[in-house]
């Protein structure tokens, strides 16, 4: 029962080559079937005039893509969506600050962690109903608070110029807990010995944060940045429920939804979807390069 040295190592090498694929196979298969195939099926639809009201469709070449370039409403929805990018730094900052707070040894910190995360687990439908109350211009909570401080009330969702701001407030409240969670997990990787050591060296807590904690949270920063930037491109739900007047909150995906599910122009909706996809893809790749991730 002697195994030659050569055989073992050869065996190990072949093992090695297959091993990574074994690890990623389930994920790749899943993505392939659940997203990729539907996407590949949707792509040809964008070259048809399909209404989705029956299986019949006609090929129309690039008509949908040409139409899109002259569609003012589409470009307007792009502008609306662009305003939501302010949300990204706000939500990251809110998540980081709260994570730092909740990483301190404060009394009742466990309960606080639960409370700070509670907006994320609250049903979006129920939360939107409540915020509609709070935003109500004449009698709502927010304007009462502004009035208490002697400030003039806003029209919030009912006014085209403040509607996006209102949705951003809602979205930050609803989602900052997720950034907090990621940062909290990230903070567990910052060894307390390093922080203590730097404290002994006389570094102020700001310096410790600036030069040690913040850089060590890099995986968290990159993930959150990427996810939230893509998330802004895909905003739908919040602007569907808190709708401002004059299409002031109609984002690209809202517009695609209108065309696909209300106007029954699924071909055109698909064309818009793939155009959006390409834009997001390019921006993400740029982001990727900019953040100097090793992959790509």
């Amino acid at each position, binding site marked *: 029962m002697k195994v030659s040295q050569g055989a073992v190592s050869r065996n190990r090498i072949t093992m090695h080559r297959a091993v990574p694929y074994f690890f990623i196979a389930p994920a790749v298969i899943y993505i392939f079937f659940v997203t990729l195939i539907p996407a590949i099926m949707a792509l040809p639809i964008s070259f048809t005039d399909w*209404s*989705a*009201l029956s*299986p019949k469709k006609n090929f129309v070449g690039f008509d949908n893509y040409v139409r899109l370039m002259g569609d003012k409403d589409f470009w307007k929805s792009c502008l609306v969506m662009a305003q939501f990018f302010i949300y990204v730094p706000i939500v990251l900052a809110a998540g980081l600050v709260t994570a730092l707070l909740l990483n301190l040894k404060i009394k009742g910190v466990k309960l606080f962690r639960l409370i700070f995360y509670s907006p994320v687990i609250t049903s979006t439908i129920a939360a939107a109903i409540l915020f509609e109350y709070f935003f109500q211009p004449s009698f709502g909570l927010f304007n009462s608070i502004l009035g208490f401080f002697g400030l003039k009330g806003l029209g919030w969702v009912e006014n085209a110029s403040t509607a996006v701001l209102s949705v951003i407030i809602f979205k930050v409240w609803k989602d900052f807990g997720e950034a907090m969670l990621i940062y909290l997990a990230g903070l567990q990787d910052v060894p307390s010995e390093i922080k203590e050591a730097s404290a002994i060296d006389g570094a102020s807590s700001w310096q410790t944060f600036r030069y040690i904690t913040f850089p060590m949270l890099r995986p968290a920063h990159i993930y959150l940045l990427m996810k939230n930037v893509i998330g802004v491109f895909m905003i739908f739900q919040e602007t569907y429920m808190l709708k401002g007047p004059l299409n002031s909150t109609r984002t690209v995906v809202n517009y695609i939804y*209108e065309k696909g599910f209300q106007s029954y122009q699924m071909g055109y909706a698909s064309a818009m979807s793939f155009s959006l996809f390409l834009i997001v893809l390019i921006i993400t790749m740029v982001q990727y390069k900019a953040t100097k991730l090793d992959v790509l």
Partner: protein
Amino acid sequence: MKKMASLLVAAALVAGGLSGCTKAPAKETSGGAVSQEKTTDQEKTAAEKENGGGEKTPVSLTYWQHSSAARDEMMTALVKTFEEQNPDIKVKLEFIPEGDYSQKLIPALATDTAPDVFQIQSGMVAKLAQTGAIKPLAEEVMSADSITADFVPAAVDGLKYDGKYYGMPTDLQTIVMLWNKKLVAEAGLDAEKGPQTWDEFFDWSRKLTKTEGGKLVQSGWGGKGYAPEVLSIIKQYGGAFYDDAAGQYVFADDPKVLEAIEAYTAPYKTDKVYNTEFVKNWAGFRQGLIGLMLGHPAMIGNLPQTAPDLDFGVGLIPAKGDSHATCVTSWGYVMSAKAPDEAATRFIQFLSSDDVERQWTEKTGELPARKALLEDAGLKSDPKVAVAIESLNDSFVGALQTSALNTIWTEAMDRILQTDEPIETILKDAQSKMNDELKNPV
């Protein structure tokens, strides 16, 4: 802009290239073919079932409706009755959340798996009939002549396509006027009668408005351009909204339409009787902050539930001259192309029968569509409901009966009320968008 455009061209090219090398398009068409074959199979089996004697293998029908507690409960009971009367048919009920109904229905239509009988906004009938997704009611069960004879024209005309009836109405609504009796009495007006003409109505709306320090504290009329209201006043002014012969919207070209819309919007724009930032209109009416409302008769049943302390009066929509003409909106029961004709039509017939319509009106506040019920003493014993039923006497089919058309309309009205752009421009925009919307679906 230029960069963006070239980017998109690039995107389109890449996408085109991709679709060229994948096998997906081929797959797609073969998939379509498969499901079409399936349809004919199903049709065959359905036909076999029908021919092969009902008693042994009952035909089974699937039915979808958008849901509400009252409606679901009633439908369940009705189906029980129907199955007792028709032992050869079994009905499977599926209730869909109201807000997401079309999102649920479209994928089913796209894959030819729609239920046998379902509800649809009446404006969808033409679109679905064009695509062949639905088919006309079986003539031997419900003849076109009998439908024309028995039903209020405005209730069924919208369900006709190419001379054939494709469905029966449900959730039939007109526009009536509601007023807060307390506020009206406070303003020294007749709280029992209500305004009769538009001039009177607009006058009341000004008298019922109160401001404090330049801010609205009570609104005279919470109108913000809801389509059926505006369509009604346009009709009364003699405006042409939609040209049946040409199959096009023509409202932006008719000065009478402009006149009607200017009259409708003047209280909001000039007299400042209401402001969307004041309070949502129905919420405000419930709370006694708004004097007058136009709205669906469904509110007659809704208000006592949601605002038990509100004392309100109900009248016909105001008139221009003698005509209290009101726009009618409705949904329709239709059957999908693959449904067994005869059984499905029998079910639809049952749902629009005299007895069932009476129950709908009594329990859910929907208006009856059968002429015979318009004079039904039992139904008219409640004076408010009586007004609602009476409104059907002078009624016409609304021309904005799909959610896409409604969205365009709402957008236009928001622009008219909340911006200073000229009304003509806004109407032209809306008209061209609506005509685009009409382009034939596949």
